[in-house]
């Protein structure tokens, strides 16, 4: 894990902002000089973003690199939980649902993106990280706090941005993991160059029966006699995916990139304990096509692109095991986004940024009467360097128009100061909003009904962080934050389930990160989060209580060692107890997970790793009623041929 600051912005020149249609003209190939041919050798296959308006240099960001997660079987959710403030919740073992929320925000209040493309969450359950293979993720940028200046709606707690692989390999790589619960996870990839273009192709597959054993108390907390050891059934998963990336130089520094990602998953839906299912299945797929162009013009920078995301899901419970009635529900989503953004240096020290995006979201779902929505978002920001470069002030504002909801605004003010050598202070104040999702607005399903009168939720948040990299090979970061949520959309429980804007909440806490290399070959990374939450709905039994599902303490410590040919790694993760209901009358126990692995670097690009996951056999649930696996074992074999270009 690395603790990184934002890219530093330099340069001067003219600023140009063009709508997408003009960009299309700008990326037409032009004759290539010999010098440009040489440049083509270093075209990078990465969806590296230019610094966006929302990526305030003052933002508190944690970058989790896949290569720092060790060599064993890694999941996207393991990467996400390596960042402070990330509350990752597991719903049921390999390939089953995993969600992430930041700084106490719920998963549906946390924006999840892949290469900057927002992933949809039409029914408000949060983006499922298990749908995103780790083989498709080179690193995760976790931007904590209000970040919707760029992101638009949905980033009350922050943004989790998954970045697809960017290794500049000439060759191929492969990895195969196998282990408990008949789990197989494989990935194969190749990268090569052809003329001025580079290509990357990755294919991945996961299979697991997910049939782990667990202790079921059968819903009777006072009765030990009926407790029984059971096997989790209908918990299998089969997932496959292909990622294709291409990039080409167009001359004059212009670059065109294409990403195509296809993922499909078919899995059992085991259900809540007490209401389990043997035949309920969930089949889903997504197809993402992302095209973008970058054009440097003098010292200014311009990027434009479009992406189309198609999704499909088929959920069936033919025997009505989960709810008592058979379900055969199909849902298809279409999400089209076009954007254009640019940076204009203002003199030698200052900078202006602007971003415009349009997004169309459409859903085919009978229960919601096929809703759709259009969003236009404009954001602008500037950077002013003052006090001889010691202080950078960053004002920014985003304005969004969402059909059916109207205008929303997201102002922000940030500051960065280098108060001593390699000692930085960062501060931010921002407002974020989330417009109601389709389910909250339009769902018509039995006693659960939507509410078309809903207003967007909003949150004001502030944070102050200090980052120090004064010691060789070490980095420290400490931040405090506070956020107040307004007009929270809360489902009225009881006879009917209907969302209304009645909730308010406060969140605050501390985030600590440490990463370093104490000795040659050994790397350490740790984080701790103190999260304090308070329900401010004013409702009796809830006012002042902690929000459910939010642990006060979360911590992680990761160590990995490479000594000669020996590889070793350990990962410790702790989540303190947390309540399951708003009245704070029942809670889940704390979890302590320890993974450990040992392996060898056999040379010639080949590595082998043996892993024990959940070595302490801690089977405390992360979500009530959904058991998780205990101790499990995996072996991973991998090979890389070729190297970085």
């Amino acid at each position, binding site marked *: 894990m690395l603790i990184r600051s934002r890219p530093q912005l330099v340069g001067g020149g003219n600023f140009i902002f063009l709508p997408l249609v003009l960009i299309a003209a700008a990326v037409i190939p032009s004759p290539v000089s010999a010098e440009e041919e040489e440049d083509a050798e270093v075209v990078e296959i990465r969806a590296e973003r230019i610094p966006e308006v929302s990526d305030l240099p003052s933002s508190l960001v944690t970058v989790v690199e896949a290569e720092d997660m060790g060599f064993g079987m890694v999941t996207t959710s393991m990467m996400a939980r390596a960042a402070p403030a990330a509350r990752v919740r597991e719903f049921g073992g390999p390939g089953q649902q995993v969600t992430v929320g930041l700084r106490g925000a719920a998963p549906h209040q946390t924006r999840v993106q892949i290469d900057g493309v927002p992933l949809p969450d039409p029914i408000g359950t949060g983006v499922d990280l298990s749908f995103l293979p780790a083989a498709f993720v080179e690193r995760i940028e976790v931007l904590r706090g209000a970040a919707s200046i760029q992101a638009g709606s949905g980033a009350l707690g922050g943004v989790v941005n998954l970045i697809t692989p960017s290794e500049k390999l000439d060759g191929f790589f492969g990895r195969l993991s196998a282990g408990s619960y008949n789990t197989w996870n494989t990935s194969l990839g190749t990268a090569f160059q052809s003329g001025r273009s580079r290509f990357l192709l990755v294919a991945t597959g996961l299979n697991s029966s997910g049939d782990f054993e667990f202790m079921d108390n059968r*819903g009777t907390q006072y009765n030990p006699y009926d407790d029984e050891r059971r096997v989790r059934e209908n918990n299998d998963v089969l997932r496959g995916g292909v990622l294709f990336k291409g990039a080409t130089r167009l001359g004059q520094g212009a670059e065109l990139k294409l990403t195509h990602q296809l993922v499909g998953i078919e899995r059992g839906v085991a259900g809540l304990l007490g*209401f389990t299912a043997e035949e309920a299945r969930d089949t889903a797929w997504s197809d993402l096509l992302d095209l973008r162009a970058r054009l440097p013009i003098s010292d200014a920078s311009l990027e434009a692109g479009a992406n189309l995301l198609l999704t499909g899901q088929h959920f069936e419970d033919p025997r009505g095991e989960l709810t008592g*009635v058979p379900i055969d529900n199909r849902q298809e989503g279409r999400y089209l986004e076009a954007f254009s953004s640019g940076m204009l240096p203002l003199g030698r020290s200052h900078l202006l940024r602007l971003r415009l995006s349009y997004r169309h979201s459409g859903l085919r779902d009978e229960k919601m009467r096929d809703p759709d929505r259009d969003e236009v978002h404009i954001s602008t920001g500037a950077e002013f360097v003052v006090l001889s470069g010691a202080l950078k002030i960053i004002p920014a504002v985003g304005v969004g128009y969402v059909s059916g909801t109207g205008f929303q605004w997201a102002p922000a003010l940030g500051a960065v100061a280098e108060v001593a050598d390699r000692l930085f202070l960062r501060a931010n104040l921002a407002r974020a909003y989330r417009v109601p999702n389709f389910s909250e607005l339009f769902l018509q399903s039995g006693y659960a009904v939507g509410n078309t009168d809903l207003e967007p939720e909003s949150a004001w948040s502030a944070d102050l962080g200090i980052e120090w990299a004064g010691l060789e090979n070490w980095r420290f970061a400490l931040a405090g934050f506070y956020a107040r949520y307004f007009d929270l959309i809360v489902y009225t429980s009881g006879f*009917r389930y209907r969302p209304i804007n009645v909730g308010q909440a406060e969140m605050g806490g501390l985030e600590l990160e440490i990463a370093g290399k104490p000795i040659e070959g050994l790397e350490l990374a740790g984080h701790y989060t103190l999260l304090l939450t308070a329900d401010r709905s004013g409702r009796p039994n809830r006012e002042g209580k902690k929000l459910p599902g939010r642990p006060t303490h979360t911590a992680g410590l990761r160590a990995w060692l490479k000594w000669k040919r020996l590889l070793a790694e350990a990962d410790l993760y702790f989540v303190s107890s947390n309540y399951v209901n708003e009245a704070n009358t029942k809670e889940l126990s704390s979890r302590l997970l320890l993974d450990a692995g040992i392996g060898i670097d056999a040379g010639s690009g080949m590595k082998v790793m043996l892993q024990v996951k959940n070595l302490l056999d801690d089977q405390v649930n992360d979500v009530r009623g959904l058991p998780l696996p205990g101790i499990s074992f995996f072996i991973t074999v991998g090979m890389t041929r070729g190297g970085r270009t």
Partner: protein
Amino acid sequence: MRFFSIGLLACLFAASCGQSGEPLLGDYRAIVANSLGEDISLIHDDYSVTKSAVSVGSAPNQIILRGREAIVISSLSNSIQVIDIETWTVVREYNVGDGCNPYMGALTQDDLLVITCNQSNELILVDPDVGMEAEAVLKRMDMPAGDEMYPFEPTNPGSARPQGVVVVGHRAYVTLANLDASWAPAGPGLVLVVDVAAWTKDKLIQLSKTSPASVYKAGSAGEEIYVTCPGPYQFDGAGIVDVISTSNGEVDTTIEIGGAPGRMWIDGDGNAWVGDMNGGNILGFDTVSGQVVDPISLCPTQDDYLSDLATDGRGNMFACCFGTDAVHVFPVGNPADAEVLEVGDGPVAILVIQR
């Protein structure tokens, strides 16, 4: 998730206490089950409240008083808790079967429990006296299905979705919501008559409106039962109460009470009081004349509903507002003088001690 309190049983219990001269329930006026708090609140004689007196299962739906014990039916944990009402501790707890979703229950002549399983479409017979190591569910009965449910569309029959149950003599009367996969009515509202002793289905009674909710008995020997029928969600505001004669098993009278009638209480003067599931109103009618009284607005906030109510035999009514975690206590018919008591999260059922 609603249910009603077993006031008559409380009455009988109180009478037995009086005979012993030692009121087991001390100074308690009422016991409240909190659906979201998953616990029990106690209302004392001076209207003070003990919150979280005991933790119960998930989504408790009903409290039944049985001798020195209170039985709580917890729907989402498929469990029932047997609570010692002197120590307020759970002394026994039973799982009633995966997928059951126990909804409401009633005591039989043999002091056993019949419980509706709303999700698994069953009626079960439970012995709440057996040790926890033993199986408490004695018998299970599948509810009618398919053509038996008089489907509006023969190719799309609904599920029974049993909800309320009341026992009169050796018979149990079970309301069947008869819903399709989207929880819309798939056929008429029904009441299934079960011979508890023989454990057989006797008869299906068609009701005047779809989606029946609760069922209550009236008369010294249970000559009549009352079935509240709010109709399908979203409610049309034209709810009814069907009155069924237990002597012939037919609907005798239909009372157009309006609103979305849910749980009901019949006081000692023969007045029926009904909670409105579509708002915080108390609906009511005279069980003798059938005359409907004007709704009484009680729960103060939008999207709240009146989850349960009962009177105490001393001229006071206790009514639960689910969304505001409140029990309003007031002279019957005069909510303006209400004492508003804060109880646990989501009060869904109240058992008022009759003295």
